[in-house]
């Protein structure tokens, strides 16, 4: 590997440079200069996003250990924009009394997990993949336990790291079986070396556990509600969108690229997982009172919908999957943004506390309603389009019954999303949450999300762009 090919990794390099700059700034700046830390971090990160948003032609570096496809630029840009929105939403919270001294760490840790996801997605070798997934997991556990004085946050951090390590252990075992069966870990070689023998099947299933855990699919979802509830709300939104989105994309590429020969086997496995995830996620969401737990279960079922793109395995499935992640990301970030504002101002998190919210905070309620309708797949919001496309991709491959089950579940999901809308709009309450004035950064983030929810569906150019670089079997 020479210097020129090293420079081709400029996505990762510029992110790494950003991390180092922020680390040095945080270490050496005095209190007065630290006031500018957050704006500078957000600005630099936006520049990084802009610099890396133009797709290039495919290439491989280091003998296929690092692989680039143009679709990666879109996925990375989606993750970048999502992270940017999380930063904007966290701005106010980080300036609060309890977290102000740790705001540097927040940026450092978040960007480190992002770097891990970059490597995980670009990997062409199981070793790089494993390094990536671990770089993404371990700082994440620290972030989950960010409010270390809060009992629930610390508990959530411990739960996350223990189950994450266990899952990666199993995944690593799967990789070792792959190496044992074929003698190579390069994706390019594995595509031909894997033929679908019993040992290889076992390896595939073990390997997939690590990713399914990160996407929080049933039966690997048990950590989700507790961690989502315990983690600071901004971290929860990061976890539910960025972490999940990257893992779904990797699952798709690896299943196609490496395990393409076992397509019927993994389709059968995914079939069951999708049905379980959608149904279990939905049924448990109905009973939740805490909004963060509520969105945790909703995100489990959403992950099930996203997997419909994976199971179809086609180019259409790939592009509708990326599109779904984009739309789901904006909707979930908007919902979590509203929850975070209200939590910061009133410490209230239950659906009952939202009674009569529309009378006191009309704008926040409308944003929340748009986000929930988008998640439920109601037109004209973008969620309708993404659901239609991903169902369409699955039906094209003949999964009629599966799509029908998914559609029946959208009715259940509409029920519980409407429960929140009902609390905000229909129910009147004497002690509704007092009017909240949110800061500029938050307003910007919510405006971006709302505009995206409204625009992405109605204007087809974004999907068409993504579709150009979709690939399947």
């Amino acid at each position, binding site marked *: 590997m020479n210097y020129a090919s090293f420079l081709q990794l400029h996505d990762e390099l510029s992110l790494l440079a950003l991390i180092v700059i922020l680390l040095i700034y945080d270490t050496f700046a005095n209190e007065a200069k630290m006031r500018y830390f957050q704006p500078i971090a957000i600005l630099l990160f936006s520049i990084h996003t802009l610099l890396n948003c133009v797709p290039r032609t495919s290439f491989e570096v280091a003998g296929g250990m690092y692989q680039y496809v143009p679709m990666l630029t879109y996925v990375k840009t989606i993750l970048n924009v999502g992270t940017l929105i999380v930063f904007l939403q966290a701005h106010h919270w980080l300036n609060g009394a309890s977290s102000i001294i740790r705001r540097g760490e927040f940026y450092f840790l978040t960007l480190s997990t992002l770097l891990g996801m970059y490597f995980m997605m670009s990997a062409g070798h199981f070793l790089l993949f494993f390094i990536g997934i671990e770089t993404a997991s371990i700082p994440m556990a620290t972030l989950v336990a960010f409010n270390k004085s809060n009992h629930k946050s610390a508990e959530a951090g411990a739960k996350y790291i223990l189950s994450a390590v266990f899952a990666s252990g199993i995944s690593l075992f799967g990789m070792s079986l792959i190496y044992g069966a074929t003698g190579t870990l390069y994706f390019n070689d594995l595509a031909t070396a894997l033929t679908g023998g019993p040992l290889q099947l076992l390896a595939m299933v073990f390997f997939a556990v690590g990713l399914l855990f990160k996407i929080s699919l049933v039966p690997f979802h048990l950590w989700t509600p507790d961690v989502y509830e315990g983690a600071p709300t901004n971290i929860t939104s990061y976890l539910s969108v960025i972490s999940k989105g990257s893992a779904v994309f990797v699952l798709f590429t690896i299943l196609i690229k490496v395990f393409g020969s076992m397509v019927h086997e993994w389709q059968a496995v995914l079939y069951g997982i999708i049905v379980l995830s959608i149904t279990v996620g939905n049924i448990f969401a109905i009973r939740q009172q805490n909004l963060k737990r509520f969105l945790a279960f909703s995100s489990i079922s959403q992950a099930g919908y996203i997997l419909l793109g994976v199971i179809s395995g086609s180019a*259409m499935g790939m*592009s509708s999957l990326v599109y779904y992640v984009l739309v789901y990301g904006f909707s979930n970030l908007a919902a979590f943004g509203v929850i975070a504002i209200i939590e910061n101002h009133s410490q209230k998190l239950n659906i009952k506390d939202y009674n009569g919210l529309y009378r006191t905070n009309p704008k926040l309620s409308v944003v929340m309603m748009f986000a929930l*309708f988008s998640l439920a797949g*109601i*037109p*004209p919001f973008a969620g*309708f*389009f993404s659901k*239609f*496309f991903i*169902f*369409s991709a699955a*039906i*094209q491959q003949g999964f*009629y019954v599966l*799509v*029908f089950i998914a*559609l*029946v579940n*959208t*009715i259940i999901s*509409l*029920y519980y999303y*409407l429960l929140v*809308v*009902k609390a905000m*709009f*229909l129910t009147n309450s004497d002690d509704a949450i007092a009017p909240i004035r949110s800061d500029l950064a938050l307003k910007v983030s919510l405006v971006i999300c709302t505009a995206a929810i409204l625009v992405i569906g109605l204007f*087809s150019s974004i*999907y*068409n762009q993504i*579709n150009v670089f979709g690939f399947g079997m």
Partner: protein
Amino acid sequence: MNFLSIFVLIPFLMMVALLFAKNRNQINFIAASGSILLLIFTGLVTYLFVTERAAGNVAEMLFRADTVWYAPFNIHYSVGIDGISIAMLLLTSIIVFTGVFASWRIDPLPKEFFLWFCLLSIGVYGFFISIDLFTMFMYYEIALIPMYLLIGIWGTGKKEYAAMKLTLMLMGGSALLMVGILGIYYFSGAQSMNILDIAQKHIPLSAQYFLFPLTFMGFGVLGALFPFHTWSPDGHASAPTAVSMLHAGVLMKLGGYGAFRVAMYLMPEAAHEMAWIFLILTGISVVYGAFSAVVQTDLKYINAYSSVSHCGLVLFAILMQNETAMTGAIMQMLSHGLMTALFFALIGMIYGRTHTRLITEMGGLMKILPFLGVSYVIAGLASLGLPGLSGFVAEMTIFVGSFQEVDTFHRALTISAAASIVITAVYILRVVGKILYGKVQNPHHEDLSDATWWERISVVTLIIAIVALGSLPLWISNLIHESLTPVVNNLMR
């Protein structure tokens, strides 16, 4: 995009204008001028359509426009209208116009009410002008969700329960529909989701056998097909006046129109084979709805069950698959839309004065409220099929058409469905006798005042439309007739 999209654009601009409205006068002004504009525009399009047809343009759909929207899925934004769409658009414009005047004093949150009302009309208008399965489905769903908030916030009675039931049941219908239309698209092998293109292809029979029930039931839920009608009485009874009007008057027609345009047109073989199942179900709707209306004591429930019965008749006639019955079906959609809107408007106005909808608590209102009383009698007479009013024309055509099917099964069903006319007379006359004549039940009712000017506008417009349809039926049946030919030809193939 061509000028047909203005139907969607006007309500959209109304929404934008409403966002900036400051007080009730401005809100009412925007709503009224928008709805008048829609009415004028509909008249204009009707005129253009008629002259174009008179000039000898025999294309199936006129004023077609086609814009590629999502190329990878072959989704186009395509619009076009035929005589049936014209009839539906006229109906929608009349109901939207009268609905605005019926909710002149809506309280609380008038601005939000009209915002959702406009979104609802976007959905309805869009549905009737689309000829692409995707756009059609999208507009269908757009029309569903405002219902939840409209009923939930401004409704009466057990409104939260009713709103949730209605939304979820209709979403259930759209779930069936979504599998149905995706299946139609992939099995037909067409190059677009355009209905006219798909009609040229042949969907394999084995696929039709499961796609037809899916689509027919999907639309049937909205068209109050037994046993999926249960959302309708609760929903209509709890909804605010204008929403009941629009929902029973227009939205339920989406069901009939969709079943006709998608299920029957695109899958004629399955329609032929499986019609008997749905004929039995719709037959039950017709008779059971009428009997249920007899035993109700709440005015809105009576009218809601009568809607189940009348809308059942629409699907019943469509399933008869002959030209006369289908013409009757479209006429019935129009007639029922106008009638039921008039009923709901009057019930809303009476309720706004007496604060009760129970027929046992009212009496002698004719003396106190002569205008509303007379209008109620006219609506009742139209509903039980008095010649000269719209109900007679529609039901007559349906039963004449149905009787053309000579086998015992169809004959028996037609006869039992026709019995519903008698039952209709029972509940209509009972209500009229009970609430309008006789002694005044409640002394407080003596001081009630009759209709205000905005209420009169709403009521008079609807009565004019009912009389016009009843006395000049040929004009509208000619309009419908030529548009039916391609569908009937497809069925006869």
